[in-house]
């Protein structure tokens, strides 16, 4: 496996966010670096930190050991904690070509963001009076506060993106008109028209759509729909509608879904949160008729069951004689959405069955020259990260179109293999930090955000659980095939190859012991390269010599130490060198400070964890110290000047 293979989290992310990079930055306490890494690809960190569907977490290899890293929550942490940070985004000089974007949701705004960075003047046309699309109209505030969306959007607007709200395509503007003033158009109209079930009584008053309902609430209205509410659907919107009803005072809210919790696109966590707030769930239940005189009063349902139909997918069929009725003062439908493209029917865009715009390729090229389309209007309703991904693709495609560049070659990244079972068993288990939440009593009375976000201590602890997949050891041409690495690797990953040692990057845990022990200095560990490590030590010594010549001590400390107390730098003496585990501090690094005039060297071994993060590192730390002390003795330096500090400093 190539050493450039992508960690599974990054590969799973539709925009290939460098998850390992930013999680690692948080683990070191460098939040500014974390947000910088996130913002390289994602203009909506505050939003994604809250409502992302988190394909990364499903792919996270920590999940093979215990639980995945809380990647989205860490993104939220980075975004929330850098609010005041002045983020300078490069804009201008501009090309002469201008780009019009229709639709101010995540896809359109992402395209606007990327195109601005690429050097185009961009105008966003939004049909509603507010930007944000489903982020502001579709997701209730207790899950995604509008102010949070606004922060991300404001930053995009601050780059010089022009927004014209209240401008709907087909009503206020046409594609032909846009093409006169703009050299490229991106259609990101979204997908907000509800799908109705084929049931009798669907036209009864009291049967409403979740989109309409949530939109009203997002505009500040607080409609009380009655005591008993039935929500139909299994997605995020269905659960959002149900939890919103609870907040509006309805005591009896039942969500019916034709499949089971396992098939729900809303995650189990969301279901649990809704249940804890009082929402009742009836799975394998489908509505067949809405009943009532003059307004809806009851829902007639049928129970469903799966039957095997020979293929891999199971078919869902109604159970005979299983009909029953549920009382309903109102019914909220959330079974799906289609794009609302009726107003642009006359335009010669090829449209799909459900009102989607048909594109020619992954880049979103339509049959009209200069017009591109993306986001939900092409794909049907997807997650916010998918919309962002499509906005990014469109921006790139438009740039290539306007600059006459060849289309981007799409290469599938090589992805690190899953961890082998034997490695999984050697990794120390840890617990995922629980997201602090608003007490249920308070939650159901307000639209205040439920998830409160990690504290700095929690975030660091959580980030330090990252296995740094793929940032392990690689063997250079300098290898003399002594296979010392094979003997010292605590995980049994290093193996003899035909001509040199071989270290499987997909399994290496990046403990750094092999690199510290390689007599040919032929092994380097990406997590902290030899060059970076030497430079770090050199820089610390340099400042020590400048500030306190003749009177300084160099201390090495484990970055995985005291994960509950951050930032460390403030607590530390001045001349400290942080290390991702101390086993990688080789004998040279222990001796060298004395050469530079250090009075002493301290190894501050982490005491916080019950067990060292890496297997066997304790022993190697001890061995390195012993070897170094022996050399010091021979040199004529009191060996006690090199100390291992193990007691807690509290």
């Amino acid at each position: 496996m190539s050493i450039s293979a992508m960690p599974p989290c990054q590969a799973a992310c539709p925009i290939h966010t460098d998850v390992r990079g930013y999680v690692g930055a948080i683990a070191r306490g460098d939040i500014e670096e974390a947000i910088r890494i996130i913002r390289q690809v994602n203009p909506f960190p505050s939003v994604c930190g809250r409502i992302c569907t988190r394909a990364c977490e499903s792919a996270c290899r920590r999940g093979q050991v215990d639980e995945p890293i809380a990647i989205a929550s860490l993104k939220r942490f980075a975004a929330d904690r850098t609010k005041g940070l002045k983020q300078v985004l490069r804009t201008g000089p501009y090309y002469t070509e201008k780009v019009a974007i229709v639709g101010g949701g995540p896809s359109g705004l992402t395209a606007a963001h990327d195109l601005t960075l690429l050097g185009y003047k961009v105008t966003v046309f939004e049909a509603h009076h507010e930007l944000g699309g489903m982020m502001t109209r579709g997701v209730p505030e207790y899950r995604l506060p509008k102010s949070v969306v606004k922060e991300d959007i404001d930053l995009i607007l601050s780059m010089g993106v022009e927004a014209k709200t209240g401008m709907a395509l087909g009503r206020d503007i046409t594609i032909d008109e846009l093409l006169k003033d703009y050299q490229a158009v991106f259609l990101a109209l979204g997908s907000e028209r509800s799908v109705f079930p084929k049931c009798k009584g669907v036209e009864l008053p009291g049967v409403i759509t979740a989109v309409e309902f949530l939109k009203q609430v997002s505009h500040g209205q607080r409609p009380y729909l009655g005591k008993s509410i039935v929500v139909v659907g299994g997605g995020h919107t269905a659960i959002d509608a149900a939890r919103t009803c609870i907040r509006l005072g309805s005591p009896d809210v039942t969500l019916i879904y034709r499949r089971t919790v396992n098939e729900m696109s809303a995650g189990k966590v969301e279901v649990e949160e809704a249940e804890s707030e009082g929402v009742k769930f009836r799975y394998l239940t489908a509505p067949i008729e809405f009943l009532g005189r003059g307004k809806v009063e009851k829902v007639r349902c049928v129970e469903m069951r799966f039957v095997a139909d020979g293929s891999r997918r199971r078919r869902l069929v109604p159970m005979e004689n299983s009909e029953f009725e549920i009382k309903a003062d109102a019914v909220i439908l959330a079974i799906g959405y289609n794009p609302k493209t009726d107003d642009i029917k006359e335009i010669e865009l090829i449209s799909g069955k459900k009102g989607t715009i048909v594109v020619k390729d992954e880049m979103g090229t339509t049959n009209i020259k200069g017009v591109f389309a993306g986001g939900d209007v092409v794909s049907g309703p997807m997650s916010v990260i998918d919309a962002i991904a499509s906005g990014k693709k469109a921006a790139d495609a438009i740039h290539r179109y306007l600059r006459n560049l060849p289309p981007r070659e799409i290469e599938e990244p090589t992805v690190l293999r899953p961890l082998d079972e034997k490695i999984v068993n050697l990794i120390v288990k840890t617990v995922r930090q629980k997201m602090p939440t608003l007490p249920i009593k308070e939650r159901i009375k307000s639209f205040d955000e439920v998830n409160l976000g990690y504290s700095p201590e929690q975030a660091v602890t959580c980030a330090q659980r990252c296995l740094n997949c793929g940032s392990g050891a690689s063997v250079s041409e300098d290898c003399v095939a002594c296979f010392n690495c094979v003997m010292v690797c605590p995980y049994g990953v290093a193996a003899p190859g035909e001509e040199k040692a071989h270290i499987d990057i997909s399994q290496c845990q990046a403990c750094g012991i092999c690199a510290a022990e390689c007599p040919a200095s032929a092994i380097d560990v990406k997590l902290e390269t030899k060059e970076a490590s030497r430079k770090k030590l050199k820089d610390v010594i340099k400042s020590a010599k400048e500030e306190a010549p003749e009177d300084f001590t160099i201390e090495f400390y484990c970055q995985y130490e005291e994960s509950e107390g951050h930032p460390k730098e403030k607590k530390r003496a001045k001349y400290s060198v942080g290390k991702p585990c101390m086993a990688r501090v080789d004998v040279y690094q222990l001796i060298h400070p004395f050469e530079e005039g250090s009075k002493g060297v301290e190894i501050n071994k982490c005491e916080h964890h019950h067990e060292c993060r890496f297997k066997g590192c304790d022993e190697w730390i001890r061995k390195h110290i012993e070897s170094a002390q022996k050399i010091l003795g021979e040199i004529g330096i009191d060996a006690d000047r090199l100390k291992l500090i193990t007691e807690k400093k509290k």
Partner: protein
Amino acid sequence: MVVAEIKPFKEIKDTLKHYKKVLIVGCGACVTVCLSGGRKQVELLASALKTSRKVEGDEIMVGEMLIPRQCEPKFVDMIKGEAGKYEVILSMGCGAGVQEIAERIENIPVLPALNTTFIGMADEKGQYLEVCAACGDCILSKTGGICPVARCAKSLINGPCGGSRGGMCEVSKDNPCVWQLIYDRLVKLNMLHLLKGISQPKTRSVHPRRMVREDLTSKK
């Protein structure tokens, strides 16, 4: 491989006491493998020397180099230019390396940082064992691939001395009796009959030995 050990630091320091500019030259072959003279050891020894001088209130300029194989004249020639900047070369190669450097770089003294100890093999547990005495008259075909010349304390070539106890050597009780090892292996190979043969006493080689490549040295 040739196994060598780093000399006591004091000895190295003493041999260098009159010099202020030393070039440490490591070797990328055998001594890297046995962890005595590779890049890492060069770096460490350089730092130790500089520190030690500092402790004594003095200083020293230490250069660090590594050549792939010190016993190869063409590699040694490549460092001639750099070596000219120093007063002395400290070789971290085996005895052959030290002498190759001395042979090629005539105007600068070359000192050894290692004691070359034996021709040996690694045992995967962190030990290097002497297994070949380079006697020039190999009898391994008769002894199950185990050399009594190098591995018997008495270098007996026709069976054990009789002092072996519980399979261990009477001279050095940590060492197995090599004749026991030879016997056990020949039992396994079902080749015990080999022990009935007599190995003739070895003719002691006259030093220095040489091996001649006739393809290069023969007269036209």
